[in-house]
């Protein structure tokens, strides 16, 4: 190989430069900032435990959608006897009334763009 010294040195410099952010973060112990969600006030529990909701709220919404629209099963009873309607607009958004500071923050962080809002109307709290 001609100019092996120059090429290898160049490659090494390139590698160091490209991985700089990794070294920098490792040195400063920086961590990715999780999105700060604004939780509804005065409400302590959702229809499922937080971890469950965080991981699979989209599955729950899909189930609700199919049950309500296709099977006309619109209501469900919680173990404590409370009756809820299977509805994004009428149940979820009644508590989570700020889409921008709840739904959007996480969805933007993860770069997902659900199309719920093409049709379902976001509550006024989410509009500036």
């Amino acid at each position: 190989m001609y100019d092996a010294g120059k090429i290898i040195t160049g490659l090494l410099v390139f590698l160091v430069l490209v991985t700089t952010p990794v070294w920098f973060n490792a040195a400063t112990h920086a961590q990715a900032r999780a999105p700060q969600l604004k939780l509804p006030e005065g409400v302590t529990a959702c229809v499922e435990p937080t971890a469950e909701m965080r991981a699979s709220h989209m599955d729950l919404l899909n189930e609700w959608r199919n049950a309500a629209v296709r099977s006309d099963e619109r209501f469900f009873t919680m173990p404590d006897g409370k009756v809820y309607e299977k509805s994004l607009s009428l149940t979820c958004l009644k508590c989570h009334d700020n889409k921008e500071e709840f739904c959007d923050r996480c969805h933007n962080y993860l770069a997902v763009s659900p199309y719920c809002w093409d049709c379902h109307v976001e509550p006024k709290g989410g509009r500036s």
Partner: protein
Amino acid sequence: MTVDRRGFFKLAGLGALGLAGARSLPVLGNPAPAPSLPGPGPDGGVRWGMVVDLRACLNDEGCRDCIVACDHAHNIPQLPDRKHEVKWIWKDPYEEVFPMQTHEYLEDALHGHPALVFCNHCDNPPCVRVCPTQATWKREDGIVMMDWHRCIGCRYCVAACPYGSRSFNWVDPRSYIETIDPEFPTRTRGVVEKCNFCDERLARNQQPACVSACPHGALTFGNLADPTSTVRLLLKSRYSIRRKPALGTHPEVFYLV
């Protein structure tokens, strides 16, 4: 075993026939669902239907209360371009609504006067048969429902409906809705929509929005499967017609004339 040219063709022909036969078998085994005729339903079944009193409606020709109520309840856009119009409930001249039940000497009270029209929620709905995604289907209680999540906008149903009851969203409807009711979704561009007999209100034991809004009692909604229901008693006591009955769609919207 040796097969000569003649024998080979005979065998090949038989084989081809056998294949064709086997292919057609599933078709014979699963015929398209036969049109179910409206029955009396003594088992307490539910079959929603509507009776429109044409005369009562004509007493106040300019009245649009039911249309306005429906527009508000379902976030229906008011598009200026008539080609893009979205309609759930509207009025058309009698002759256009009942082309099979009219003639040139029709009585003055009906001739050219508006009749209220909306989805007939047919017992044998042609729109359902052509929908490739089952985005529209007939519920047990007879409502021809739409699942807008599933609609791919192919417009087969628009072509299939002989009553023009279905509208396609050619443009994004959001900006053409005066006041959006957040309790009901809007639709999006590329989706077909139509009257849903207010299934969202029925689920809460409420009458459809148009029925509640009518100040003249011209609309009666009820269970056709119950022989003692108001709709059945009305149909028993007065002469009624349906739209384009010869098409065999069996509309469940009846007009008292």
